[in-house]
């Protein structure tokens, strides 16, 4: 259970790994926009190509990336089915009782699949696989810092995220321990009706909450002892700096964007 670490950072030292996290965050947003720009088979083909290229540049084994997609397989199949059966079009391919399958449905389904695939690849390669959670938090804090002017608690939000990330593994381990302890007292989490099983969770949830509050309490005291007093006057060990390569990456993405718009103009029967 401990091994499904959040973010599953996978160090390979690639160009993407070394890029500024703020740039990666911007690029991820840009990439998402790109996937929604696609309108026809050419642009969808291009975004698919771009996704594969991203994986190759990041030097993360394709196997690892595909494994993360497996988790979303259900959503993908669901989208596929919905699109195939629900889209109405002009070219009827198959008909049986109330089921009508049009060519447009098949095309739409494929496009949606590519879109989801590109979305997952783009965000996970640009963010989770190549960026440590802490760098990501820094990036969010830095990008949102203008909002501090209108009194939004950006620093506090970033701090909360860091602490949450820090304690997820700890609390997961704790859950396992409490479950084992209650099993040792004969608790049964697998048998019985739904209500019975939900009730069986009480002996886990209560100790878990109590412990989480105790930890929060102790942590806040420890933080105060280390002179924490909010974001005011705080410095940071790491200073984020954009480098030339970051701007090159940005240019590449901008080019992709422009390319997609251009490709959308090409005439083809396979379009949304």
């Amino acid at each position, binding site marked *: 259970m401990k091994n499904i670490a959040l973010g599953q950072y996978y160090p390979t030292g690639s160009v993407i790994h070394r890029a500024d996290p703020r740039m990666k965050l911007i690029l991820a947003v840009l990439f998402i926009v790109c996937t929604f720009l696609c309108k026809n088979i050419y642009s969808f083909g291009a975004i698919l190509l771009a996704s594969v290229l991203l994986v190759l540049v990041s030097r993360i084994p394709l196997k690892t990336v595909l494994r993360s997609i497996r988790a979303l397989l259900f959503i993908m199949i669901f989208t596929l089915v919905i699109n195939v059966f629900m889209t109405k079009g002009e070219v009827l391919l198959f008909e049986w009782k109330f089921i009508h399958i049009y060519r447009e449905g098949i095309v739409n389904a494929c496009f949606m699949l590519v879109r989801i695939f590109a979305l997952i690849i783009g965000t996970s390669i640009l963010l989770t696989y190549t960026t440590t959670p802490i760098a990501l938090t820094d990036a969010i804090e830095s990008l949102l810092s203008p909002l501090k002017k209108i009194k939004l608690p950006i620093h506090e939000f970033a701090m909360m995220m860091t602490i949450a990330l820090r304690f997820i593994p700890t609390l997961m381990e704790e859950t396992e321990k409490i479950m084992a302890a209650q099993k*040792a007292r*004969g608790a049964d989490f697998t048998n019985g009706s739904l209500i019975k099983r939900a009730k069986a969770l009480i002996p886990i949830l209560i*100790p878990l909450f109590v412990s989480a509050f105790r930890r929060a309490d102790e942590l806040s005291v420890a933080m105060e002892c280390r002179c924490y007093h909010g974001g005011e006057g705080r410095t940071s060990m790491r200073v984020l700096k954009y480098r030339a390569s970051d701007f090159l990456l940005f240019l590449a993405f901008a080019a992709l964007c422009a390319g997609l718009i251009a490709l959308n103009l090409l005439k083809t029967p396979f379009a949304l």
Partner: protein
Amino acid sequence: MSEIKLENVSYVYSEDTPYEKRALTDVTATIKSGAITGIIGHTGSGKSTLVQMLNGLTRPMSGRVLLDGKDIWEDPKKISDVRFRVGLVMQYPEYQLFDETIRADIAFGPKNMGLDKEEIERRVLEAADFAGVDREWLDKSPFDLSGGQKRRAAIAGIIAMRPEILVLDEPAAGLDPAGRKNIMEGLCAYRDKTGSSVVIVSHSMEDMAQYCDDIIVISDGRVIAQGKKEEVFSQSDLLRSVGLDIPQITLVMRLLADNGINVNTGVYTVEDAVNEIYKLI
């Protein structure tokens, strides 16, 4: 009463992944009926895994766990019966308390056993006495007690199942000397009055030397020594070679022997050491 035997038990965590870790390798050991057995070893030596095998919380990947000669995994559906017979108190058990009152919390185990109301009440009171839980605390919320009191209430929660074998993973961790003594003496009383076996995992060699009959030493997932505590503690070189301490008093005796004084180095309590040295004067 009951005896547990481990036969060639092995266990590996996260097999076939980069995180693979052999927790236990070919462990064969006996927990004798009616004895207080101490298990010593470093953190990460595999002793917590071993302890969870005794009551079927962890299933060995190979080998057998025999409770009175019968494989506990013969019928996996009946494993909860084993958990009632072999009571396990985990580390820092106070963090498992959840019910509104101490009384209800101690009753959780017996209730899961399907006992009737009167029997449960009887067992709660009996367990409270063994574990040193004041009757006055029974109607308090677990969260109103001090750390040491909560610890005792949690131990009572296991004792209330009246296990034939009571297993405790570091029952005295983090307690002050008085609290530690209190708990250890309660466990001795439980053994003496019920004839149940008690298994204690601890880092305190002094406690082990004082309270246990038998000792099992684990290092790196293997049993490297087991037997009567006299035999085990006399092998102080072996213990120190795997980085374990020996009772402070045994160390003093060994240092005396090194200085050329003819003393028995197999001494591990203050009283014995006093007698041993007194003889020389």
